[in-house]
């Protein structure tokens, strides 16, 4: 008592607690942990649900938001208006080069071959014009071999660092691809290795080689071009589209970013699917917490009635319940979100998913979303029990059994 007095005048309730050696945080903590098993089960179920939520949101982001690179906003991809699968005549190049604002253009043809004896296409191969392509991937850095050597060697190729690591390849190795879309097979030699782009998995080879194998094919898959400034991008897109209008091969040009997003939109309603699953997860999560909290409170109805009889106000009782439920759910969120973050950043998902999932980055934004959901959950779960505690009369509360 004396120490409390020397620090000023504490409120009556505060004085009561100090007298018995109990502080309010201590009281809440003791209450939360007195049924240790239940506290643990609650924390764990919140943790599992939070981890799941974070994983779903990350998966959704991975599938719907392609990674962005600065250079991509200067780059334009032009495909046949019919569809991506329809090639374009190679003679279009001279026309495109004359369009003002076009700094460089290269053919860009998806080969889609099967590597070695694999049965699915696990990484992409593109036929390009190496001399022109150099100016198109500004963000890429050559980390092994030399680009010039690749330009000179018609059978050479440039491979991404990720793929090199995945298969344990090195410069000078031979790569064999069986054609799926094209009736020809490729035999390539790694001349150089790139890294630092948004997708360091691909293989690039000479379009001239493809032309030769296909008996002077005279077609390209798409055109890949670079505008000389951000301002000229729109003009280039319009120019390219207009240049081939009403020809036998009409063209649809768009920025690389728009192209990627268009590709993503072909997945169908992925976003809706993940959104609804996440909603169900959050809903279940709330149920679990609400049910646990009300269980904990119901068990303690008599005690709460005693507290009320001692003069604690409703507000204070609500604070006790809220602190307990909020604390438990935040602890669960910490374990679950932290665990998910640790798990996804430690394991090599790219290898496990065979290149399907590349980044799977649990962003701060996603973690914050998980945390906010858990916080709301802690608050919502406290409301029901608090209302019933507030409504109960001291007498009936004291009478409660069980």
């Amino acid at each position, binding site marked *: 008592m004396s120490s409390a007095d020397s620090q000023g005048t504490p409120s009556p309730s505060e004085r009561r607690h100090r007298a018995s050696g109990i502080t309010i945080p201590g009281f809440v903590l003791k209450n939360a942990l007195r049924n240790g098993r239940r506290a643990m*089960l609650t924390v764990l179920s919140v943790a599992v649900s939070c981890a799941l939520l974070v994983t779903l949101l990350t998966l959704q982001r991975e599938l719907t938001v392609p990674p962005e690179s600065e250079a991509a906003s200067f780059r334009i991809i032009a495909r046949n208006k019919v*569809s991506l699968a329809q090639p374009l005549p190679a003679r279009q190049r001279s026309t495109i080069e004359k369009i003002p604002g076009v700094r460089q253009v290269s053919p860009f043809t998806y080969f889609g071959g099967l590597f070695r004896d694999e049965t699915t296409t696990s990484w992409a191969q593109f036929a390009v014009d190496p001399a022109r392509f150099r100016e198109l991937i500004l963000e890429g850095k050559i980390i092994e071999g030399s680009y010039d050597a690749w330009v000179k060697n018609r059978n050479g190729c440039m491979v991404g660092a990720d793929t090199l690591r995945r298969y344990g390849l090195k410069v000078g190795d031979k790569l064999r691809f069986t054609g799926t879309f094209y009736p020809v097979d490729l035999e390539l030699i790694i001349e150089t290795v790139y890294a630092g782009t948004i997708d360091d998995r691909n293989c690039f080879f000479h379009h001239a080689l493809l032309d030769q194998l296909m008996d002077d094919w005279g077609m390209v898959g798409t055109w890949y071009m670079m505008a000389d400034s951000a301002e000229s991008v729109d003009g280039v897109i319009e120019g390219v589209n207009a240049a081939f209008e009403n020809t036998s091969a009409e063209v649809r040009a768009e920025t690389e970013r728009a192209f990627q997003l268009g590709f993503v939109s072909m997945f*169908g*309603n992925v976003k809706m699917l993940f959104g609804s699953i996440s909603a169900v997860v959050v809903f279940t999560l709330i149920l679990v917490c609400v049910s646990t909290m009300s269980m904990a409170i119901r068990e303690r109805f008599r005690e709460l009635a005693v507290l009320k009889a001692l003069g604690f106000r409703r507000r204070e009782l609500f604070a006790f319940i809220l602190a307990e439920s909020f604390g438990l759910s935040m602890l669960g969120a910490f374990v679950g979100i932290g665990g998910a973050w640790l798990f996804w950043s430690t394991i090599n998902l790219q290898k496990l998913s065979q290149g399907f999932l590349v980044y799977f980055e649990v962003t701060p934004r996603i973690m914050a979303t998980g945390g906010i959901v858990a916080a709301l959950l802690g608050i919502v779960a406290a409301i029901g029990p608090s209302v019933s505690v507030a409504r109960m009369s001291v007498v009936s509360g004291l009478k409660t059994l069980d």
Partner: protein
Amino acid sequence: MALPLKYNYRNVLIRWRTTLFTVIGVAAVVSVVILLKALAKGIESSSARTGEPGNILVVRKGSQAESGSLVTRDQFRTLQFFEEIDRNAAGQPVVSAELVMIINAPRRAAPGSANTLIRGVTPRGLELRPKVTLVEGRWFQPGQREVTVSKKLAGRFEGFEVGGIIRAGPDRLRVVGLFEAGGSAFDSEAWMDADEARAIFDRSEMYSSILLRPRDDAAMRSLTNRIAQDKRLGLRAEPETEYYSKQTATAVPFNILAGLLGTAMSVGAVFAAMNTMYANVASRTREIGTLRVLGYSRAAIVVSFLIEGVLLSGLGGMVGCALSLGIYAYVVARGVTFGTMDFQSFAETVYQFRVTPDLMALGLVFSLVIGLIGSFLPALRAARLPVISALKSL
């Protein structure tokens, strides 16, 4: 002696609030698993329903999908006169060289566009696929820029209705009819005359695949071998049904997702069920003491609590099944179809999701397992309560 079942279900009903929470939790898990599996099932069954038993599909060796296959006119000329091929009433060989192309079309409901398959077929091709039936309008005329599209596609893409116009670059194709293909892969296609398709898509010397019908089983075997052994041809022949039954790669992500979510969510549900059951045990301490005094064995108590847990989660399982059936019925009644990009053809596969009895059984088993695991430890605890102190407790 075992405790009567009535004891359990009465207990489940009397504590309706906690029961309700657990039931809803388990129901959510079960319905998520069932619905995701139903999506995968829809894709698989669309593959399984495609193809006639007696037909053979010939594609280029190494190609993964028909749309990526190339068969030259020379190859077709060689092949069409193989004597193993059956002949129709008019004496023509029953063989159809077809062209499968991808066109990009604007979506009807959502913004953006998606790829869809357009198939150039011949009159023989229609004979070879008797399950594909016309439901509206008429079939395309040879030599005309006309298409007959799947009724399911008509709902998904702009201009795919009868009288609509499909644009393929500078060319315009008029939709003259709708067909139904009985939930097969052809439900994701638009059909037109093969020669017109070759002209429009600049494939004068190329086809994608050849569909044919051998005279009998012996002819089928000999033809398959003959094509496989002819290295010069570079083609691959296999029964049409077999070819399509392998095209289920699109279903794989859904199955993985169902497994992943099912596991993670059921772990959460097990914790929830455990919580409920522990609370049940704690609040019934005196009751359990009484039962023990009355002569019920520890084993009887364990069994009784296990049954209660299973009852609880089984109820959740049933609600989950009912929920997914309800969603299924709604989807069927509204005629909603789902579309996903097929990574092999790069075109959209349209399918109906299917809640089948075996999926519901799976969901139910899933819920029972959750109940068993969730109630195991609480049941043991109930059985281990010391009788005297249990009786004394409030």
